[in-house]
């Protein structure tokens, strides 16, 4: 039990002694230096442990033997020790990080460093305003000096700018202190009350608080800080960005109680503005350290805002939100700055050198995900709770600004991430430095530790909800195994998982369980074709599949949302594995995140759930408010690729690896459908006065038609299928939006059917891609002779898609049109008819361009797709055939599911199904079709006489014989005439919209960036003006 005062004393003493010690040997001085830092950490850790677990009361240290307010006193409580523990830890590890530099540099830098640490400790503990000023000055002076540690021209000028800004701020601070003393006669914050300040007096508080706030680098008066971040050595800058900021932030926290509320609100809003704009400006940034600088400033702004906004919240929430953001910022920012020191490349696209070192890459991922607020890291939970809090206190503008800022953050962080993982390595690979890697990895461990603590201790999640993350860890451990073994293990794991969650409480869960788990299990078979190790693949795959499963058993909003985020991140990582997937995956991530934020707000608006049953059941008795329905619907529709927000979909499908696409299309899109159905379940009983689902229905219908047209104009087989999925999911969305018995039966029927045929199609295309190495359909052709099995798959599947009887697709069409017409959605039904007629265009295109027509020279010796692709295809085909011949197999259970919510509108009599409008007997249709097929076949066989089999070029021609298979195969731009007929309707308007939205945002960011001139005087002017503006806004 060492008194924390020794931290100050020892740091100061050793700091000054260092130059003497150094005279003997650098080794001694280094030992002393690190000794002190370690000592600090140990002392604080000891205190923190005592406060937290032993319940030791807050420690107050009076100096000079007097009690406060006469003397200056220091205070060390839970909060102080928490902040100090981490600042000191970062300080220590930053020092370790800088070990090499410290070994060689001038001894004064070690001294300065110790003094800086001392300043931080003092600043956090002291309760006296003037003492604060002193520590602030100590901190600032040591920082100015350390800033020029690198001794480059840039860092010197940055240090000078810092000094200018710091001096300006401290002038205000000192003035504030003087005035406060004048009004309250006291300098100890524990003895100052806001009530002591009259109208005039509040100017004293204003000067004090604005000085601290300026030190927190609010937008736009923060140009000096950015230059510092960019110019200074990465070890030092991590201390400045993290340790200094933490101390000053705590300073702000300390004086918060004496500030009037209107001050706080303005500061909170200024914090939000800082967060929003810093992240926006970062969009255009290419230099890693400057980008991190923008991000730190933004994060500090968010911290200030959350400090202010959580003021009235329960204690544990404050700890979670502020503490979560704090830890998140501390760890990820320090980690990333250190990584920038390891990487030694300025430009973010050169960070791909990290791919040379797997553990560093993982660390990079951890820090980046943590910073982006991706679960399970602390930032996610803080954001979730903050959103809830803001929604409850109706601060919607602040909320939307924070979410928009977070979205910008996601964009630049993930652009960085995808560039790192995907771009071509051009830069030189640096030497990996052990001391630096040690420090950085330590932070990674802390991040994971906190994530685990929050999940397990704070929320008490059961193992099943952590399972997705565990899967990644486990597979990561056994990643040395060949991929076939891992694939089989994954298959077993999925089956076991399915068995574990099997006894569902409702049939609808069972239904989606079959789609998610059984569908995934069959799809996994196709991944068994992988050779080599496929490092990391199965981990994320399992994470995604377990997330699907967890979605259906989630019992509250948080579980659902957490799982949703797991699903998003894992699918993002899977898509990213594709060869050219950088842009595609980034787009996917941006849209998914935007959707997730909307959902987050939507859930926050939703009323609390009672009981412990799955959402599908409990939501039936909950009235969701209109805003919540709208936000949730949009969120889920983004995931299912509805019109307007669909542009991520084709890219992601096309660029993902061949065997991943089938998961995305067949199963991932159904998650969106499932979500929409959840909203629908509440909608059944509590439809809002404004019929929002009517419009959702229109969107679904338009998605169907636009998707079908877009699919018809694709050259790339996977893009074609992707747009086809979009179109089909459009049908499903529209059918769900009907909120009627038949509508839901048809939606579920279609969802099931789509899962089967789209899996089969994507796997078939994967097999073809495996053999031909191309996705362009016009480069194939005539493969029916070489790949008959794949051909049969595609044939059966496209018949099932198109809705031609007797296969299962017709059932979907029949149900859906009957539902639409009996529901009174006539025009929508007309549009759907159009969509289904247009779907023939792309279906014929894919089968003709790939399998029919002319076989190319290079494919003359091609073989059938590997057996691992064939097996799952035929399992799905079996499913399609079964429900085609015996539609009762599926219609009956679906009827029962839908009857939970509505009265049944169909009558099933034997194999016949009667609706109020018409009837359909799948069995008779099947038999008649068989008869109608066999009889002409027999006639033909009887009459045909001698049949001569000929080859591909034996086609009729007179003048010139076919030149080459390439020129004879009609496949490229097959529907040019239709495009011509569509005229202006054929333009990619939605793509253009998002493209220009992105362009505008970036241009705006670029425009705002110009306020940072790089001139110190301008920066000071900014500060002064900022103070004036804040002064006016506050109306002091």
């Amino acid at each position, binding site marked *: 039990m060492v008194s924390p005062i020794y931290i100050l004393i020892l740091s100061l003493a050793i700091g000054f002694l260092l130059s003497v010690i150094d005279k003997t040997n650098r080794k001694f001085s280094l030992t002393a230096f690190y000794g002190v830092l370690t000592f600090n950490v140990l002392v604080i850790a000891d205190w923190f442990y005592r406060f937290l677990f032993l319940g030791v009361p807050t420690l107050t240290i009076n100096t000079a033997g007097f009690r406060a307010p006469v003397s200056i006193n220091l205070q060390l409580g839970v909060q102080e020790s928490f902040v100090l523990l981490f600042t000191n830890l970062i300080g220590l590890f930053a020092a370790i990080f800088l070990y090499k530099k410290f070994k060689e540099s001038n001894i004064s830098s070690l001294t300065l460093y110790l003094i800086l640490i001392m300043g931080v400790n003092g600043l956090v503990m002291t309760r006296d305003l003037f003492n604060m000023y002193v520590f602030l000055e100590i901190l600032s002076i040591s920082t100015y000096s350390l800033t020029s540690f690198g001794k480059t021209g840039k860092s010197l000028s940055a240090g000078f700018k810092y000094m200018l800004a710091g001096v300006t701020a401290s002038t205000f601070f000192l003035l504030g202190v003087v005035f406060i003393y004048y009004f309250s006669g006291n300098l100890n914050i524990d003895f100052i009350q806001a009530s002591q300040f009259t109208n005039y007096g509040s100017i004293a508080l204003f000067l004090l608080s604005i000085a601290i706030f300026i030190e927190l680098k609010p937008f736009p008066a923060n140009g000096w800080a950015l230059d510092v971040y960019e110019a200074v050595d990465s070890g030092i800058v991590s201390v400045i960005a993290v340790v200094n900021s933490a101390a000053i932030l705590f300073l702000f926290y300390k004086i918060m109680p004496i500030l009037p509320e209107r001050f706080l609100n303005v500061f909170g809003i200024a914090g939000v503005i800082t967060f929003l704009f810093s992240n926006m400006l970062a969009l255009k940034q290419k230099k890693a350290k400057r980008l991190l600088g923008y991000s730190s400033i933004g994060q500090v702004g968010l911290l200030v805002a959350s400090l202010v906004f959580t003021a009235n919240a329960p204690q544990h929430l404050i700890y979670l939100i502020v503490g979560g953001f704090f830890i998140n910022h501390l760890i990820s920012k320090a980690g990333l700055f250190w990584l920038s020191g390891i990487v030694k490349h300025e430009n973010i696209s050169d960070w791909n050198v990290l791919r040379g070192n797997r553990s560093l890459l993982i660390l990079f991922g951890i820090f980046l995900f943590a910073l982006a607020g991706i679960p399970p890291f602390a930032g996610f939970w803080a954001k979730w709770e903050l959103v809830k809090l803001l929604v409850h206190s109706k601060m919607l503008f602040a909320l939307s600004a924070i979410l928009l800022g977070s979205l910008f953050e996601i964009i630049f962080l993930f652009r960085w991430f995808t560039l790192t993982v995907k771009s071509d390595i051009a830069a030189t690979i640096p030497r990996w430095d052990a001391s630096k890697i040690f420090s950085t990895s330590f932070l990674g461990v802390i991040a994971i530790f906190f994530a685990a603590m929050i999940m397990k201790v704070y929320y008490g999640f059961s193992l099943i909800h952590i399972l997705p993350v565990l899967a990644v860890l486990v597979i990561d451990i056994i990643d040395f195994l060949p991929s076939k073994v891992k694939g089989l293990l994954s298959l077993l794991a999925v089956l076991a998982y399915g068995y574990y969650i099997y006894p569902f409480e409702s049939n609808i869960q069972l239904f989606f369980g079959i789609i998610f788990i059984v569908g995934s299990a069959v799809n996994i078979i196709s991944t068994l074709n992988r050779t080599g190790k496929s490092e990391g693949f199965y981990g994320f795959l399992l994470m995604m599949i377990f997330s699907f499963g967890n979605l259906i058993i989630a019992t509250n909003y948080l579980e659902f949302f957490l799982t949703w985020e797991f699903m998003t991140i894992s699918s993002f990582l899977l898509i990213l594995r594709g060869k050219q997937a950088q842009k595609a995956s980034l787009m996917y991530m941006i849209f998914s995140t935007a959707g997730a934020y909307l959902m987050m707000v939507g859930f926050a608006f939703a009323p609390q759930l009672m009981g412990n049953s799955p959402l599908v059941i409990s939501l039936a008795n909950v009235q969701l408010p209109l805003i919540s329905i709208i936000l949730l619907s949009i969120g889920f529709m983004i995931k299912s690729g509805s019109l307007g927000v669909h542009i991520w979909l084709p890219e992601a499908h096309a660029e993902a690896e061949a065997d991943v696409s089938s998961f995305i299309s067949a199963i991932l899109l159904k998650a969106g459908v499932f979500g929409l159905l959840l909203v629908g379940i509440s909608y059944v009983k509590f439809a809002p006065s404004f019929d929002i689902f009517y419009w959702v229905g229109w969107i679904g219908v338009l998605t169907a038609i636009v998707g079908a047209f877009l699919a018809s104009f694709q050259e790339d087989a996977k893009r074609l299928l992707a747009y086809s999925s979009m179109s089909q999911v459009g049908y499903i969305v529209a059918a769900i939006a009907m909120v009627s018995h038949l509508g839901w039966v048809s939606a579920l029927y279609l969802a099931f059917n789509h899962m089967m045929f789209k899996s089969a199609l994507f796997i078939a295309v994967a097999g073809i891609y495996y053999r031909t190495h191309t996705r362009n359909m016009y480069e194939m052709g005539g493969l*029916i*002779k070489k790949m008959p099995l794949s051909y049969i798959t595609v*044939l059966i599947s496209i018949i099932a898609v198109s*809705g*031609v*009887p007797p296969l299962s697709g*017709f059932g979907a*069409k*029949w149900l859906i*049109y*009957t539902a639409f*017409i009996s529901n*009174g959605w*006539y025009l929508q039904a*007309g549009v759907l*008819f*159009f969509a289904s*007629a247009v779907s*023939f*265009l792309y*279906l*014929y295109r894919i*089968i*003709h361009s790939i399998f*029919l*027509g*002319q076989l190319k020279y290079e494919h003359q010796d091609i073989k059938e797709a590997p057996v691992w692709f064939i097996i799952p295809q035929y399992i799905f085909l079996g499913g399609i055939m079964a429900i085609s011949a015996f539609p009762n197999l599926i219609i009956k259970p679906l009827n029962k599911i839908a009857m939970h919510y509505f009265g049944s509108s169909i009558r099933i009599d034997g194999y*016949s199904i009667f609706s*109020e*409008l*018409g009837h*359909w*007997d799948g069995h*008779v*249709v099947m038999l*008649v079709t068989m008869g*109608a*097929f066999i009889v*002409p*076949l027999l*006639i*033909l066989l009887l009459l*045909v*006489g*001698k*049949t*001569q089999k*000929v080859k*591909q*070029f*034996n*086609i*009729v021609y007179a003048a010139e014989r076919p030149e080459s298979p390439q020129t004879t195969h*009609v496949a490229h731009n*097959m*529907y040019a*005439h*239709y495009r011509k*007929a569509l*005229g202006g309707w054929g333009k990619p308007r939605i793509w253009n919209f998002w493209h220009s939205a992105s362009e505008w945002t970036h241009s705006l960011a670029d425009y705002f960036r110009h306020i940072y001139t790089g001139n110190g005087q301008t920066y000071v002017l900014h500060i002064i003006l900022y103070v004036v503006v804040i002064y006016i806004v506050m109306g002091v």
Partner: protein
Amino acid sequence: MDIIIRILYAVISILVATVWGLTLTGIVRKIYARVHGRFGPPVWQPFLDIIQTHSRRVAISHGYMFFLGPVFRFAGGLGTYLFIPVILGSTVFGNFSMGGDVLLVMYFIFFGQLGMALGAGEGGHPYSPMGIARGLSQMSAFEVPFSLAIISVAIQYHSLNITTIVQAQQGSILNWTLFTNPLAVIAAMISLLGMNGHAPFSIVMAPQEIPIGPPIEMNGSFLGILQTNRGLFAAAKLILFMNLFFGGAAHPNILVALLIMMIKTFFIYMFSVFVGASFPRFRPEQSFRFFLKWPTAIGILAILYIAYL
């Protein structure tokens, strides 16, 4: 036993329809010739052509799908026909209409088209996919007014069941959909022009530009099957239109009912024949645009008129 009788009935029904369909084609050729100022081939020429094509000694086959293509096409024609009740209340000509309603018939039309498109595609001749691409595109366009008309009729009679729809039109000639819901009938009749592929919508076969289009490689018996199907399929389509819009064929005496059927289908067919004989051909994109403009607007009006007025 029941099944055998049913099959027997189906065979009779199919034979009647096929013969009638082929005769209609013969009549149409004759009329075309007369419009041109020629004598024209005899009415039974289609039958001779079918015998001739079937009597070719060698048939060229490009592969299994090519072989099955005409079979698919004919099966599509047969199926379409078999799910339409030809004569109200008749067991012989009731066909297998318990299999489904008008939606089934509409989608069964695609069965043959898709199968034929696949078979022709395997032929490997560039003109086949060109013709098919045109055909599918045109189909997607004329399907729009047609489906709107069907929806309108479904709203009107609150049924998709063909028998019910025919039943509702009995009694007086004024009960025909033609008079109760004229807008839907106009929309549907215009799309019939596209369905029949006569000028101005003969862009699929277009002998001058893409010689005969999809079936360019079809020969011998394959072609024979296609020709037979053309007769049956024409009959099926006309009977569908007759049932939906022109009161169907109903009479206690089955022969009279058949006669009614023949007269009605003849006049329905003549509509598209006369339009075809007097117009030149559209270009593909003109054709699609046409269908997506006026007939679609009429179809929407038909729905609005029936549903909301």
